[in-house]
C-alpha cells in the first residue's frame, strides 16, 4: 500500500474544500450549470437516472482494510447500504445526495482516498494488474510506476481539459490481466537484451462506439523517460485531438486518422524537446516513491501444508472452491484468493456494507490488511497462508463471497445498465441473472471451463462486451430491450474484438441463445480446447446455425 505523505494529504484535503465551495456556489445559483457539471465530473460526480453517482478512485485497484470500512460507513450513512465495483477497479455509490457529496469526500480524504479525475475529459484513475507484487509471471512490480503516473496526472494544469477522457493501464506481468490494449495508453514492463526494464507502450485502444485495439507506439521506453514521453503524447493529443464531436474525440480516432507511424513521429518530435528536462525521472525519486509503499512481512513457510491437504481430500466443496477461486502465489506457502462478487443474490460487482466490513476484518486477519479489485469486478485477498485457507473459506462462504465461479461463464462483467444509467438502452443486470441461473449447477459450470461473458447496456461499452468471448450489447428496438451477440472477443495478451453473430435477440430469448452457444461449443470442442480455440477452428457458422435454428 502506498502511504500518503504530507503533500499528498494536503492536496486531497484542499481539493475537498474547493469542491465544497463549488457545490455551494452552484446550489446558491452563483455557478453556471455547465461549469459546475465539468467541475463535479472531475470530482467523480455524475448525474444518473435516479440520483447522482459518485465514483471513488481506487488507485491501481488496491485498498486497505481501514479504507474498506470507510466505504462501508459511507454506504450506510449516505447511500443505500452497498457499493458497486467497476471494470476500472473503482467503486461507485449509486444513491448519494448532491449536497452531501463534499462531506463524503471529506470522509474519504480522512482515509487517504479521493474521487479526483474519476470522470470528465481528463486523465482518469490508473488501473493495474490485480496480482501486482504477487504474480508468478511478474517482471517488475508496476505499482510504483502507477503511483508516479497518479501523481503526475493529478490536477495536471495542462491536461485537465482534454478532448475526451483518457485511461491508462499498467502491468508488470507477462499475462495481461488489466485489458491493457483497450486503454488509451497501455504500459507493459518488459526487459531488454541488457537486462534493463522499460515499457512497451501501446496507444489508441478503447471500446465504446468505435472499438479499437491499441497499437505499439514505442517498443521499449526507458523507465527514466516515462513521464516526459507521456507528456509528449498528451500534448499532441490535447492540441490535435478532435473536439468537434464527442464520439470522435478519443485519442484512438486521432491515431487512426493519421496512422500510427505519423502519430509516433509527432510524439517523437514533441518528446525531443522535453526528454532531457526536469521531467526526466531520477533513481532517487523513484526510490522515494518505492519507499512510500508499506512492505509485507512474509513468513518463511514450507511449500506443502499437511492440514490443507487433508481438508482438500475430505471436503469436496472446499476443494472445488480452492481449485476455482485461488491461484499460486510467488512466495511458497501463500495463496492468492479471489472473492467472487457474482453470487446471484446481488447484481454483478455489488458489495453490501456488511460484506465490506467483513472483508476488512478478513483482510486484517489473513492478508496484511490489503484488498485488491479486479477488472472483472471481483475482489482479491492476495497473500493468504495456505494453512489458513480453510478458515478463510468458511468465513467467505458465510458472506456469500465463496461462489466457485471465477473465470467461468457465471463470472460475468456487467455494467449497471438501464436500471441505473441514464445512457443505457437496455437492462443488463437481469440478463446476467438469467444466464447465471442457467449455469447454476456447478458440475455443469466447471465442465464448460473458462469462458468470459461480458454485457453492456449500450454502445458505450462499460461492460466491455466487445472483448467478451461472448458479448451482449443492449439495443433499443421500438421501446423493447434487444441484444446483439458478438463472439470471439478477448482482452488478454491476444486482444481481439468480437464479431457479430447475427440479428439481435429479444430479451425473452437472450438467455436461451447464450445457452445454445455454449452447448454448441461443448458439443463441438475437441479435447482441452478453449472456447476461442474452438471458435477459431470451426468458425461462427456452426454455432450460428444452432442459435438461429429456433424462432428468434
Amino acid at each position, binding site marked *: 500500500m502506498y502511504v500518503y505523505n504530507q503533500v499528498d494529504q494536503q492536496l486531497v484535503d*484542499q481539493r475537498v474544500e474547493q469542491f465544497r465551495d463549488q457545490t455551494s456556489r452552484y446550489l446558491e445559483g452563483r455557478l453556471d450549470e455547465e461549469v459546475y457539471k465539468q467541475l463535479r465530473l472531475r470530482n467523480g460526480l455524475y448525474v444518473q437516472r435516479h440520483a447522482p453517482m459518485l465514483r471513488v478512485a481506487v488507485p491501481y485497484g488496491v485498498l486497505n482494510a481501514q479504507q474498506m470500512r470507510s466505504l462501508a460507513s459511507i454506504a450506510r450513512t449516505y447511500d443505500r447500504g452497498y457499493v458497486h465495483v467497476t471494470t476500472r477497479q473503482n467503486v461507485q455509490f449509486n444513491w448519494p445526495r448532491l449536497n452531501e457529496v463534499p462531506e463524503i469526500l471529506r470522509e474519504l480524504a480522512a482515509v487517504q482516498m479521493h474521487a479526483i479525475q474519476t470522470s470528465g475529459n481528463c486523465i482518469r484513475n490508473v488501473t493495474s494488474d490485480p496480482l501486482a507484487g504477487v504474480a508468478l509471471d511478474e517482471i517488475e512490480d508496476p505499482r510504483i510506476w502507477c503511483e508516479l503516473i497518479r501523481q503526475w496526472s493529478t490536477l495536471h*494544469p495542462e*491536461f*485537465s481539459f482534454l478532448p475526451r477522457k483518457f485511461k491508462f493501464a499498467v502491468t508488470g506481468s507477462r499475462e495481461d490481466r488489466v485489458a491493457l490494449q483497450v486503454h488509451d495508453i497501455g504500459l507493459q514492463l518488459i526487459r531488454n537484451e541488457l537486462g534493463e526494464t522499460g515499457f512497451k507502450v501501446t496507444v489508441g485502444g478503447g471500446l465504446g462506439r468505435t472499438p479499437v485495439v491499441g497499437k505499439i507506439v514505442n517498443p521499449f521506453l526507458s523507465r527514466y523517460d516515462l513521464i516526459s514521453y507521456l507528456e509528449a503524447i498528451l500534448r499532441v493529443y*490535447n492540441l490535435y485531438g478532435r473536439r468537434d464531436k464527442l464520439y470522435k474525440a478519443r485519442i484512438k480516432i486521432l491515431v487512426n486518422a493519421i496512422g500510427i507511424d505519423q502519430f509516433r513521429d509527432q510524439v517523437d518530435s514533441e518528446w525531443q524537446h522535453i526528454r532531457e528536462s526536469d521531467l526526466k525521472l531520477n533513481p532517487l525519486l523513484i526510490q522515494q516513491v518505492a519507499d512510500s509503499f508499506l512492505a509485507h512481512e512474509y513468513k518463511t513457510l514450507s511449500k506443502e501444508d499437511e492440514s490443507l491437504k487433508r481438508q482438500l481430500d475430505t471436503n469436496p466443496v472446499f476443494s472445488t472452491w480452492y481449485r476455482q477461486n485461488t491461484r499460486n502465489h510467488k512466495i511458497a506457502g501463500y495463496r492468492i484468493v479471489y472473492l467472487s462478487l457474482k453470487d446471484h443474490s446481488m447484481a454483478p460487482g455489488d458489495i453490501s456494507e456488511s460484506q465490506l466490513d467483513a472483508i476488512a476484518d478478513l483482510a486484517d486477519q489473513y492478508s496484511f490488511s490489503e484488498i485488491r479489485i479486479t477488472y472483472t469486478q471481483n475482489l482479491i485477498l492476495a497473500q493468504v497462508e495456505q494453512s489458513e485457507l480453510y478458515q478463510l473459506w468458511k468465513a467467505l462462504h458465510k458472506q456469500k463471497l465463496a461462489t466457485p465461479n471465477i473465470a467461468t461463464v457465471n463470472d460475468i462483467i456487467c455494467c449497471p445498465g438501464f436500471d441505473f444509467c441514464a445512457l443505457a438502452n437496455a437492462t443488463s443486470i437481469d440478463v446476467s441473472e438469467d444466464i447465471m441461473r442457467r449455469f447454476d449447477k456447478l458440475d455443469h459450470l466447471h465442465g464448460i471451463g473458462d469462458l468470459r461473458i461480458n454485457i453492456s447496456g449500450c454502445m458505450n461499452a462499460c461492460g466491455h462486451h466487445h472483448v467478451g468471448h461472448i458479448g451482449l450489447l443492449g439495443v433499443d428496438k421500438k421501446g423493447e430491450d434487444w441484444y446483439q451477440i458478438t463472439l470471439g472477443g478477448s482482452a488478454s495478451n491476444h486482444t481481439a474484438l468480437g464479431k457479430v453473430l447475427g440479428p439481435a435477440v429479444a430479451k425473452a430469448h437472450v438467455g436461451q441463445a447464450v445457452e445454445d452457444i455454449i452447448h454448441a461449443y461443448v458439443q463441438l470442442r475437441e479435447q482441452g480446447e478453449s472456447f476461442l480455440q474452438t471458435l477459431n477452428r470451426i468458425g461462427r457458422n456452426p454455432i450460428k446455425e444452432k442459435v438461429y435454428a429456433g424462432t428468434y
Partner: protein
Amino acid sequence: MPVLINNRQQIEDSWIRLIDDQIIEDQSHIIVSLYRLIRDWSQLQLLEIAIGVELESDAVVEDMLFALSEIDMVVLHFEVFADGRAFSQAKLLRERYGFSGDIRARGDVIRDQLAFMRRCGFSQFEVGDDENIELAFLAFNEISSAYQSDLNRIA
C-alpha cells in the same frame, strides 16, 4: 464588460483590439489577429508601438515564432472554457519558446480554471464581471501544492 486581473489585483487595460482591416491610428498598444500579424508584419514591425497577437485555440503557436521576439503580449482565446488547447499553447510559449511578455486569457474564462492557467504561464485574465473579483483571487491558491513542476516563477 470583463474585468482584467493578474493573480493579485485588478489592472488597467491599455490594450486595444483591432479587427483585421481597422486602421491603426494613435493607439499605443494594439492586439491583432494571427492572420493580420502574418499579413501585415512588414508594416507592423516598423511601428513604434506595443503589439499583441491573439490566437484562437486551433492556431499553431509555431506560426507566430517569426515575430515572437518583437511581440509584447499574446492573448489566448477560450471560446469555450472546456476546450483546453490554450493551456498547451501557453506552456509552449513560455517553456519552449521563452516568451517573457504577458500571456492573457480571454473569452470564456472561469474562476475555477485560473490556477491551472497561471501554472501554464498565463499572467493576465479577463474574467466576467459576474465573478466576485475578491473571491476570484482566492482561486489561485485553493490548492497550495502541485505534483508537476510549474511556471509560477515566470508568471
